[in-house]
C-alpha cells in the first residue's frame, strides 16, 4: 500500500433533489487499523467458538450471527457517509441483541438483550438527530463534503430553546456523541453492557469488549474535523469519559462474576479512550482501542476457558488455585492482566501512558478532573485485575470438581489465547508510528492549540519506558497489585471485614450507584404507566367513551324523542299543530 486513501461509491442509494446518498467505501489509515482489529479478533473468536460452542444446539446459528456481525462492523468502519455509518451502527446493535439473547430460554438473557437494544436506541436517537443537523447545515451526508463544509459550519449558531444561540458545532458534536455514549457504554448509558454478559463468552470478547463497543470511539475520531471546532463538545466528552473511567472501575472491585469484573473493566477502559478523545488525543484513543482489543479479548476468552473447565461456573468465589490445572489459560491471562494494568513494556502500558500524558498536557475545561480520574483509575484497574487473577488462579481451591480435576481446554480454545497474547505484548511498540508519528494524518485532524501529542515529547521506545518507570501511574499500578496480593492472598479475611466496616459504600457499589433501579422505575415503569394512562383514559374514556359512543348515544336519544313524537294518533298531531300555531301567533303579534 502506498498510503493513499481509497474512497469510491458502489451504488446510489437514493437521489433526492440535488442530494445524492450513496453506498460507498472509504479506507484510510483509521479504517485500516479498525479493519485489522475487527478481522483479527473476529478470526480468533471464530476459531475459539469451534471449541467453546461445540455442544450447543445453536452451533450453526451462532456462526451465522458472528459472520453477520463481522459484516456489519466492517460496513460501519468502511463507510464513507453518514447513512451507511448509521446502517452499520444499527446493524451491529441488532446482532448484539441477537447474540446477548442467544440462549433465548434464559429470562435474564432476554431481559438483557432488550435492555441493551433500547439503551442503544436512546443513543441512536441523539445520533440520528446529529446526522440530521449535519445534513441541514452541510447539505450532504458524504464525509468529505461535510468535512469541507466544517469551517463554514463552525461559525453558525442554532436556537433550540427561546432565543439563546448555541454554537452549531457544539450541538452537532454532543448529539453525535450521545450515539457514542450508547454504543460505547458511557455513563449514564452504560447500563446495558454489564448485563450483556448473559451472552456466550466469545461474544463478550468480540462484540462487548474488542469491537462493537469501540464503535463510538471510532466515530468520534472519524469526526475529528468537526469536533475540533467545539471545545464545549470536547469538554463534555472529556468529563463523561473521566466519570466512566473512574466510577465504573470501582464497580469492578466488588463483582463476583468473572465476566462482570471484566465487563466493568471494559467500561472503565472505554472511559479512558473517551477521555483521550476529549483532549483531542484521537490517535491515542485509537491506539488504546487497538491494544485494548487484543488484551481484553484475551481476558474474556481466557475467562471462557475457565468457565468451560469448571462446567459453566462463573462465580470467582468458587474458583481458586486453577493455575496448575489450566497452565496455558493462566499464563495468557497473566499477560493480559499485566497488559491491562499498564505494566511497562506491555501493550496497555504504552497506550494508557500516552493518554495520561495527553490529559496532563491538555488545558481544556475538565482536564484537571480527568487527570485525577485517570490516575486513580490506574490504581483501581490494577486492584480489580489482580483480585480477579488471584481469586481465580491462586490461593485455595474452592471449586466443585465434579469428581475429576478440571483440565485445560482443547487446542482450538487455547491457540486463540496464545495468538492474542502475542499482540498484547507487542502491539505497544507501534506507539511511535501510530500516536506520535503522522500515520493518521489523512484521517484525523487536530488544531494546533489542541495538540497534546507533540512528537517533541516522545524520545523512542526505551525513553518512553524509562520515563514511565519514574512517573506516578507505574507506582499506582504497583500499589494496586500489592494491595490485591495483600487482601486476597496474604490476608483473605480482610475484604469481608472491610465490607462490614464500610457497609454504606459497599451498598452503593452493589446497587451500581442506583442507575438500574432508577431506569427501571422511572423510564421503564414510567413509560408503561403513561401507556396505560393514554390507552385507558385517553383512548377509551375520553375519545371512545365521551366523543364516539357519546355521539352515538346522543343520536339515539334524539331519535327516541323523535320516535315518540310520531305516534300515529291524529289528536297528537292536531295538538302539536295548535301549540305551533299559538306559538307563531304570539311570536308575530307580541
Amino acid at each position, binding site marked *: 500500500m502506498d498510503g493513499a486513501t481509497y474512497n469510491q461509491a458502489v451504488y446510489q442509494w437514493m437521489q433526492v433533489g440535488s442530494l445524492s446518498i450513496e453506498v460507498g467505501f472509504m479506507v484510510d489509515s483509521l479504517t485500516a487499523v479498525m479493519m485489522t482489529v475487527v478481522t483479527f479478533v473476529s478470526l480468533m473468536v471464530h476459531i475459539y467458538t469451534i471449541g467453546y460452542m461445540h455442544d450447543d444446539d445453536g452451533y450453526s446459528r451462532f456462526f451465522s450471527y458472528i459472520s453477520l456481525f463481522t459484516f456489519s462492523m466492517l460496513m460501519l468502519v468502511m463507510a464513507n457517509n453518514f447513512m451507511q455509518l448509521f446502517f452499520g451502527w444499527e446493524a451491529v446493535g441488532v446482532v448484539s441483541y441477537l447474540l446477548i439473547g442467544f440462549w433465548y430460554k434464559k429470562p435474564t438473557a432476554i431481559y438483557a438483550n432488550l435492555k441493551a437494544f433500547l439503551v442503544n436506541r436512546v443513543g441512536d436517537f441523539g445520533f440520528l438527530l446529529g446526522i440530521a443537523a449535519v445534513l*441541514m447545515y452541510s447539505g450532504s451526508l458524504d464525509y468529505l463534503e461535510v468535512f469541507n463544509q466544517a469551517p463554514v459550519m463552525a461559525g453558525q449558531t442554532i436556537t433550540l430553546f427561546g432565543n439563546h444561540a448555541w454554537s452549531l458545532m457544539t450541538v452537532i458534536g454532543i448529539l453525535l456523541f450521545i450515539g457514542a455514549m450508547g454504543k460505547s457504554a458511557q455513563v449514564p448509558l452504560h447500563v446495558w453492557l454489564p448485563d450483556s454478559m448473559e451472552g456466550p463468552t466469545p461474544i463478550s470478547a468480540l462484540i462487548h469488549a474488542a469491537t462493537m463497543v469501540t464503535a463510538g470511539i471510532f466515530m468520534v475520531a472519524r469526526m475529528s474535523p468537526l469536533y475540533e471546532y467545539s471545545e464545549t463538545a470536547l469538554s463534555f466528552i472529556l468529563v463523561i469519559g473521566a466519570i466512566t473511567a473512574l466510577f465504573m472501575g470501582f464497580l469492578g472491585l466488588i463483582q463476583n462474576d468473572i465476566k462482570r469484573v471484566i465487563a466493568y473493566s471494559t467500561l472503565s477502559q472505554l472511559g479512558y479512550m473517551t477521555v483521550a478523545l476529549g483532549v483531542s488525543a484521537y490517535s491515542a484513543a485509537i491506539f488504546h482501542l487497538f491494544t485494548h482489543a487484543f488484551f481484553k479479548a484475551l481476558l474474556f476468552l481466557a475467562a471462557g476457558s475457565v468457565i468451560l473447565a469448571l462446567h459453566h461456573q462463573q462465580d470467582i468465589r468458587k474458583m481458586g488455585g486453577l493455575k496448575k490445572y489450566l497452565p496455558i489459560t493462566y499464563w495468557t491471562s497473566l499477560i493480559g492482566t499485566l497488559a491491562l494494568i499498564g505494566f511497562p513494556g506491555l501493550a496497555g502500558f504504552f497506550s494508557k501512558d500516552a493518554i495520561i500524558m495527553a490529559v496532563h498536557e491538555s488545558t481544556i475545561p475538565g482536564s484537571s478532573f480527568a487527570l485525577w480520574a485517570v490516575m486513580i483509575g490506574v490504581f483501581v484497574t490494577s486492584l480489580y485485575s489482580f483480585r480477579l487473577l488471584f481469586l481465580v488462579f491462586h490461593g485455595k481451591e474452592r471449586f466443585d470438581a465434579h469428581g475429576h480435576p478440571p483440565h485445560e481446554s482443547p487446542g482450538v480454545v487455547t491457540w486463540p489465547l496464545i495468538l492474542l497474547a502475542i499482540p498484547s505484548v507487542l502491539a505497544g511498540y507501534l506507539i511511535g508510528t501510530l500516536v506520535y508519528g503522522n500515520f493518521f494524518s489523512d484521517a484525523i485532524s487536530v488544531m494546533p492549540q489542541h495538540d497534546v501529542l507533540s512528537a517533541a515529547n516522545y524520545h523512542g521506545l526505551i525513553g518512553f519506558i524509562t520515563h514511565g518507570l519514574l512517573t506516578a501511574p507505574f507506582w499506582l499500578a504497583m500499589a494496586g497489585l500489592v494491595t490485591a496480593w495483600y487482601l486476597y492472598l496474604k490476608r483473605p479475611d480482610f475484604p469481608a471485614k472491610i465490607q462490614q466496616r464500610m457497609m454504606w459504600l459497599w451498598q452503593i457499589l452493589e446497587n451500581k450507584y442506583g442507575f438500574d433501579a432508577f431506569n427501571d422505575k422511572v423510564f421503564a415503569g414510567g413509560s408503561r404507566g403513561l401507556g396505560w394512562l*393514554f390507552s385507558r383514559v*385517553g383512548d377509551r374514556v375520553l375519545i371512545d367513551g365521551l366523543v*364516539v359512543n357519546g355521539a352515538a348515544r346522543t343520536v339515539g336519544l334524539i331519535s327516541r324523542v323523535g320516535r315518540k313524537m310520531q305516534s300515529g294518533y291524529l289528536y297528537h298531531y292536531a295538538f302539536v299543530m295548535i301549540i305551533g300555531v299559538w306559538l307563531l301567533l304570539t311570536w308575530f303579534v307580541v
Partner: protein
Amino acid sequence: MMDFPLLSILILLPIIGGGLLLLCKQNHLLARQLALIVSVVTMLLSFLLYIGFDSTTHQMQFVERLSWIATFNIEYYLGVDGFSMPLMILTTISTVLVVIAGWQVIQDRAAQYMAAFLIMEGLMLGVFAALDAILFYLFFEAMLIPLFLVIGIWGGPNRVYATIKFFLYTFFGSVFLLIALLYLQFQAGSFSILDFHDVSLTLTQQIWIFLAFLIAFAVKIPMWPVHTWLPDAHVEAPTGGSVILAAITLKIGGYGLLRFALPITPDASMTLDWLVIGLSLIAIVYIGFVALAQSDLKKLIAYSSIAHMGFVTLGLFIVFRITANEAITIGIGNGQVLAIEGAMVQMISHGFIAAAMFLSVGVLYDRMHTREISAYGGVANSMPKFTALAVFFAMANAGLPGTSGFVGEFMVILAAFQANFWYAFLAATTLILGAAYTLWMVKRVFFGEIANDEVAKLQDINSREMLLLASLAVIVLVIGIWPDPLLNVMHASVDNLLLQITQSKL
C-alpha cells in the same frame, strides 16, 4: 398515451373475476384457484405500469377519458402518476398475498371471501387511478362495502360493534368530502381533479375545503383523535381483512391528502400546517406509548400503524416550514423533496411491513385461536423458522436500517429537522418507542421457556406460509437496501406537487 386500456382492465379484471367467483359457491378449490389466477394476472399486469412508466414527466399517464354522465359533466377519467402508480402495485401484491393467506384458513364461504377481496382490489385500484372527483368518490365509498362485509361476516365475536364503528367513522368523514367536491365543481366547472388543482380560491374558501378534506382523510389514515376505529376493526377482522386495511385502506387517506388537500388548497394547508404537524407528532409519541400498553397482538400492531402513519402526515405538512426556514443556506429545496418522498416511501413500506406483521399474527392465531400476548411465550422453541421471519419483521417495524421501515422514517426525520429541531426530536422518539413496543412484544411472545402445552404443540410454518412471509421479507429488504428505483418514479410528480403548493392561489 397508450391505446391499450390498461387501467380499465386492472380495475375491471378483479371485479369481474370476483363476480364469477360468486357463481362457484360450492366448489371451494375452484374458487380459490380462480381467485389466485385473477389476482396474479392483475399483479403481473400492474407491473406493466412500472415498466411502461415514464418517470421524466409529471403528466398523468395511461390516461383514459370518456364522457360518462354528460349532464353533470362527470367523466370516466383515469390516469396515474408517480404517486398513484406505486400504490397500485402495492394493492395488487397485497391482494395476491391475501388470497394465498386465506387458502386453507377460510373454510366458511371461501368463494364469497375471495370474491370480496377481488372486488375490493378493483375498487381500490379505481380509487388510485380515478381523476374524476365523482368517480373517485364512488370508488372511495364502494370499497368500504366489501371491507365491511369481510369484517362483518368472517370477523371475530365483537365484529358488529367494530363494523358499525368503522362504517360510521368513515362515513362521517366522507360526507364532508362529498360536500367539498361538489363545491369545487361549482368553482371549476368540471369534476376533473386536475382542473380542481388549477381553480383559484380565496383563503376562506380554501380553509373550509381543506378542513373537509382533512376530516375525510384523517379518519382513513387514521390520525389522532379519530383513530379509535382502527384497533377495533383490526381486532375483529380476519387476517386478510387486516392486511388490506393496514396495507391499502390507510394509504388512501395519505394519498387523498397528496392528491386533494395539498394541491387544491395550498394556502390553507400552509395556514393550518401546525394542526396537521401537531396531530402527527401526537400520533407518533402518544400512540407509541399506547402501543406499549396493549395486551392484544393485533391492537399493538394497529397502534403501531397509527404511529407509522404519523410520519406520512408529518412528511407531507412540514414542507411549508422547511421552505420558510431561513437557516437553510445550502442544499435548498432538498428538504421538501425528502419530506414528501419520505412520506410516500413510508406509505409503501408500511404497506408491506404491516401486512407481514398481520400475516404473522394470523399464523399464530390460526394455531392458538388467541391474540392475547400473555397466552404465548417461548414460541421460538417450537417454531424456529417462523420466529426468524417474525423477528426480522419486528426489526423492520422498529425501523432497522437495511429494511424498508428505515428509509421513510429516516427521510422524514432528516426533513423534519430542517423544519424545526423539536419536530425532529419528537419524531425521532419513535426510535425508542417503536423498538420498545415491538421488541417487548417479541420478547413476550417468542422468547423464554415454553409457556404452556399449547405453545409446545405448535407446528412450524408450512410452505404456503413460508412463501408469503419470505416474499414479503425479500421486498422489505430490497426497498431497504436500494430505495432508488422506487424514488425515481416519484421525482417528477413530487417536483410538480412542490411547485403547486409553493405557488399561492391568492
